[in-house]
């Protein structure tokens, strides 16, 4: 097991490097942001050239990559072009908590709803309940989030109004401006209202797929021989499901949960954009469309590294919950 972990950690290094190089190579094809400044007559040509040189845009992309990468290793993540005056690190640090709050709540909520429903659906396979659950899971999985987001917005912010005439739920953002100094509960209630729509939109689709995963994992397990053995020794049906079947059915689910954790940090680009949430997803997209490659690359690197790390964690967790697996 220890050897296995060491081997995997060593294996992660080239993987992260490949990911970085591929990402950087693609980003480097995006036009040089300073070239556009030439159109601006008020900026001196020499200044532009100085900027280009300072940023390394006179170098071929692979050399620029080394320059950038050695900086990253030294802890210098570079300045942000999108938010002049801030470093890429500060920009990311501002977006991260916003995303974690939305995605974390969504993640826990989806699991809490989906797993029990998936189990019930599997245990009552072919029942009316199962059909209803199945249809709803597919609705969730097939729903384009951007459309669902807009529809929700139409419903809760355009059609449904409070008595005061204000929309029932705020259409976008994360909090009402001016409430920064308000008492905790006021802020809490205020921010909660901003969370409702994005969380619901995201949860609808992930509840759909988690339910399907749980259901099929459970279905796979309940037809195993050892479930028959449990019944043959007189285990009550409730325990057959909740003890004998569930322990086994959760093994692949736990792995999937571990693999999904990086999503909490990476954010959901489109939903964040629709609801105007200043999180990681919308930040990375904004950064790359504005050629703010330090910010975009740091954001990407963070999420990629997390994906790779959680891949390893998923495997370790798998070995931990399944006594049959011993990595040697």
């Amino acid at each position, binding site marked *: 097991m220890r*050897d296995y972990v*060491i*081997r995997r950690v*060593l294996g992660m290094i080239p993987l992260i490097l490949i990911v970085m190089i591929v990402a950087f190579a693609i980003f480097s094809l995006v036009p040089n942001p300073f070239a556009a400044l030439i159109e601006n007559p008020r900026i001196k040509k020499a200044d532009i050239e100085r900027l280009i040189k300072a940023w390394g845009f006179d170098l071929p992309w692979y050399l620029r990559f080394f320059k950038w990468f050695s900086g990253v290793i030294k802890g210098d993540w570079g300045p942000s072009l999108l938010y002049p005056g801030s470093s890429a690190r500060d920009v990311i640090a501002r977006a991260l908590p916003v995303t974690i709050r939305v995605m974390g709540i969504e993640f826990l909520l989806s699991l809490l709803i989906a797993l029990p429903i998936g189990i019930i659906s599997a245990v009552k396979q072919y029942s009316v309940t199962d059909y209803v659950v199945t249809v709803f899971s597919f609705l969730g999985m097939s729903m384009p989030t951007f459309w669902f987001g807009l529809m929700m917005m139409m419903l809760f912010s355009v059609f449904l109004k409070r008595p005061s005439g204000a929309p029932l739920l705020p259409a976008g953002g994360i909090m009402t401006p001016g409430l920064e100094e308000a008492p905790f509960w006021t802020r809490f209630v205020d921010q909660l209202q901003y969370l409702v729509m994005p969380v619901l939109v995201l949860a609808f689709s992930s509840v759909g797929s988690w339910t399907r995963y749980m259901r099929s994992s459970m279905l796979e397990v309940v037809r195993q021989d050892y479930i028959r053995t449990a019944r043959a020794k007189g285990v009550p049906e409730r325990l057959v499901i909740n003890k004998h079947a569930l322990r086994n059915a959760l093994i692949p689910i736990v792995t999937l949960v571990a693999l999904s954790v990086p999503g909490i940090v990476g954010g959901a680009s489109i939903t964040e954009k629709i609801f105007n949430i200043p999180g990681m997803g919308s930040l990375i997209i904004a950064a790359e469309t504005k050629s703010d490659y330090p910010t975009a690359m740091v954001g990407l690197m963070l999420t990629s590294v997390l994906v790779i790390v959680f891949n390893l964690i998923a495997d370790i967790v798998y070995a931990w919950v399944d006594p049959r697996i011993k990595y*040697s």
Partner: protein
Amino acid sequence: MATRLVEVQNLKKWFPVKGGVFSTTVASVKAVDGIDFFINQGETLSLVGESGSGKTTAGRTVLKLLQPTAGKIVYKGKDITKLTPNQMRPLRRNMQIMFQDPYGSLNPRMPVGDIIQEPLDVHNVGLRRERRKAVTAMMETVGLRPEYEKRYPHEFSGGQRQRIGIARALILNPELLVLDEPISALDVSIQSQIINLLQELQQRLNLTYLFIAHDLAVVRHMSDRVAVMYLGKVVETAENDELFDHPLHPYTQALLSAVPVPDPEVKRERIILQGDVPSPVNPPSGCHFRTRCPYAMPVCKEQEPAAVEVSPGHTVSCHLLTKK
């Protein structure tokens, strides 16, 4: 004197076990660990053993479907051990294999006519039209209705599928046929049909069989000579009746006595072996059988017993016989 078709000398097949930080080979599964045997033209040699004895690996290594780790395979006087897959290809016409699993051994997406014809296509035998004729004839030979050639394997029963497997193996007119547990997955009443077919074909086509099996009653019915394997080693080889009437190795004796007999009147003295077969990754030192042997002596732990020919054609590897 019969001609030797195949001779195997000190054949070994080890499978690496990877481990450690750099995924190096840390141990080996010694599936076949130095065996010798020969097969004469036209006879049936049975390889008998329990699971983990290495009999299936031995059969596949003889055909070079697995590359041997060490030792020598001589086919008709020619050393084929070092031949590359490309050099082996023409020889494959002469040596074929038939498998245990009637479900897994036929490609479910191929009509049976194509399955039987494939060896001819691979070796470019004859014209297209002639190949189809050969397929029809072969289907009749093994007792299948030729009009079924367009059907898919799942439309056939287990016994019929094994007939398809025989047809595929025989269409190139091989000399040697490795039968890897060909009947053990079949129903009792179907087993005898396939046994009869195999015996009839052997006589008609002068085939040589390497019969790999664990069912000793079938082995007794089918074979000319029998080699008993235990944990990667051949422990005893003899003519059929000689082995069953006078087993000398303690393992052979235990194995034979463990076979249930379909006659409630027969009450036999039974040798019940204790424990399980040890792991082939780490077999016991000296004689591999010593951990379960009722007669184990100190020497068995220290020294591997050599094969001794106790009577013509009857060889045994046991210290009990060399001690005197």
